[in-house]
C-alpha cells in the first residue's frame, strides 16, 4: 500500500499515484488533483464529466472509457480532449479519484 499527501490529506494510491480508495475522494480533493496535473480551474463541464465517471464506476465496477463517457454520459469526445488535454481517459480518471480505464475502446 502506498500513501501520499494531497492538500494536507493522506490518501491511498497505486504506484503511479491514482487513488485506490473510492471513499477518500471528495470535490475539494478533485480541485487539488486537477491542479497537480495542470488543470487550474474545474469548469461545469469538468464537473459533469467527473460526476458521470464516479456514478458509472459504482454501477459498472470499472472506470468508463472515453467512448462510454461520450455515448452514455453524453459528453462529446472533442470536448473531453479540450477539458483534459492530451490524455483525457487517464487524466479524468485521476481527477475523479478512480483507477485508469481498462477497456480498449
Amino acid at each position, binding site marked *: 500500500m*502506498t500513501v501520499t499527501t494531497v492538500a494536507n490529506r*493522506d490518501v491511498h494510491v497505486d504506484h*503511479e*499515484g491514482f487513488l485506490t480508495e473510492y471513499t477518500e475522494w471528495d470535490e475539494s480533493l478533485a480541485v487539488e488533483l486537477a491542479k497537480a496535473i495542470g488543470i487550474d480551474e474545474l469548469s461545469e463541464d469538468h464537473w459533469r464529466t467527473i460526476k458521470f465517471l464516479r456514478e458509472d464506476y459504482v454501477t459498472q465496477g470499472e472506470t468508463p472509457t472515453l467512448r462510454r463517457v461520450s455515448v452514455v454520459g453524453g459528453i*462529446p*469526445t472533442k470536448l473531453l480532449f479540450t477539458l483534459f488535454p*492530451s*490524455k483525457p481517459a487517464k487524466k479524468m480518471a485521476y481527477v475523479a479519484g478512480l483507477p485508469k480505464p481498462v477497456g480498449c*475502446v
Partner: protein
Amino acid sequence: MTTTQTIPTLVPDFGDETNRKICFICSKGTLDMAYPALIMANAALSEGVECHLFFTFWGMDMINKKTMDDLKFTILGNPAAHMWMGLGGVPGMTAMATQQMKKRIADLGVPEVPEFLQLLADSGAHLWACKMSVDMMGLTKEDMFDEVEDIINAADFIEVADGAQVIFI
C-alpha cells in the same frame, strides 16, 4: 502483513511533452482487417500521440461511403476460422460470418466502422486517401467519408510520416 509506504508527493507522469507520432497504412477492406488500425489509433490518440491513417487499395473501402458500412468477413481461405474450408464457399456463409463478427464486436461496446472513424476524427486523427487508389477506382473526394482531410500521393505520405512509427496493415 501489509506494509505501507509513504511518498510525500506522487502524481502520475502523463508525459504531456511527447512528440510521438504514429501512422497506419490501411490496405485491406475486410471487416476483420479494418479493426486493428482503428483500435490502435484510438489507443494512440487517447495517449496523446499524433495519429495519421492512410487508406490505400482495398483499404479505400473503409472510407468509401458506399462500402464503409458494409465490410465483410469470410471464413474462405482463413484457416483461423477452424472450419471446413469448403464451407466458406456455401452461399450465404460470408453474410452469416459477417453478422456473427459484427455482433461479437458490438457486444464489446466497440462501434461499427463509420462511427469508429468519426470517433477517431473527433479525437484528432488525420485521415488521408491514396491518390493512386482514388484514380484507379474512379473515386472523388465526394465519395469519401467527410472527415477524410485530403487525397495525397505517396510522396506526400512520406512527408506526413516524417519521424513517425509506421504500421502497415
